[in-house]
């Protein structure tokens, strides 16, 4: 199988993602330039974190119009696996593959720290190696991670079981004290209705090896690998 890691101008987690799937997981991986259009032969596309186009206007607002995104939307519509991490999540929201939008963090700080995430749904290609209720430790690093969606939208997310990860404490408790950025319903990661596009603010690639303080993030990438086998 082949992973593709997209590089936008301003991406800065592309090498970490590449490392996680190529060197840690041991899968074939290639970089994809934002101006390319051909993604034939890839099984999973990773949109990495960073500050694509300087986050100008709104995070992800410019990147969604890059040439590669057209191919990625088609790929996703046909059922291809797409995972957007941090800025990648913001791009997936802007391009409309995932519902909702990001607001600045409630406390207006850029927050860079470890968070605990409760797995709400393990019936996805991205989390099926996790247990429901399992708590994962992964870092966040963002200024706009305050997930917003209309109340109807939130209801749809819940009804369709699209909420995959929620900010919790180490024991899995979820309340406002375990919400780092003000995200609605403590949402840290969601999938689209079909379940093949996943966006999350935490960084699995930065928590893919013990030396990084956690290897829980590797569960996300190995779930993808096992799913595609």
């Amino acid at each position, binding site marked *: 199988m082949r992973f593709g890691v997209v590089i936008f101008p301003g991406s800065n987690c592309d090498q970490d993602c590449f490392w996680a799937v190529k060197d840690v997981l041991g899968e074939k991986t290639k970089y994809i330039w934002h101006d390319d259009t051909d993604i034939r032969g890839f099984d999973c596309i990773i949109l990495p974190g960073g500050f694509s186009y300087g986050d100008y*206007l*709104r995070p992800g*607002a410019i990147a969604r*119009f890059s040439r590669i995104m057209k191919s990625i939307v088609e790929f996703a519509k046909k059922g291809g696996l797409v995972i957007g991490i941090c800025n990648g999540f913001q791009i997936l929201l*802007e391009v409309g593959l995932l519902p*909702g*939008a990001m*607001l*600045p*963090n*409630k*406390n*207006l700080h850029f927050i860079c720290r470890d968070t605990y995430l409760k797995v709400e749904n393990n019936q996805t290609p991205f989390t099926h190696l996790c247990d429901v209720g399992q708590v994962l430790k992964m870092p966040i690093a963002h200024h706009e991670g*305050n997930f*917003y*969606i*209309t109340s109807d939208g939130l209801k749809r997310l819940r009804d369709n079981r699209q909420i995959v990860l929620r900010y919790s404490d180490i024991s899995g408790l979820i309340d406002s004290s375990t919400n780092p950025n*003000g995200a609605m319903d403590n949402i840290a990661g969601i999938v689209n209705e079909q379940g093949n596009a996943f966006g999350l603010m935490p960084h699995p690639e930065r928590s893919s090896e013990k030396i990084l303080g956690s290897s829980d993030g590797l569960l996300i990438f190995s779930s993808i690998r096992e799913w595609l086998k």
Partner: protein
Amino acid sequence: MLKVEIYITLKKTVVDPQGLVIKHALESLGFLGVEEVRYGKIVNLRLSLKDEKKAEKEIEAMCKKLLANPIIEDYRFKIKKI
């Protein structure tokens, strides 16, 4: 030529974290009686178009497609002949 000012603000139904902090800062500086602060952006354009009606359509399209995110933001604009 036309000069355009586009104002983009968060929708009334969306909590504005920046507005809240600014309100708090104003209050702590002694500016009491500020009921609400909504923070936004201004985009200035100069258009080579002469026809204001045509410009309006074009600006609407720009806002919908790129400049504002309709899920969280509202926009309005003013057109001036120069």
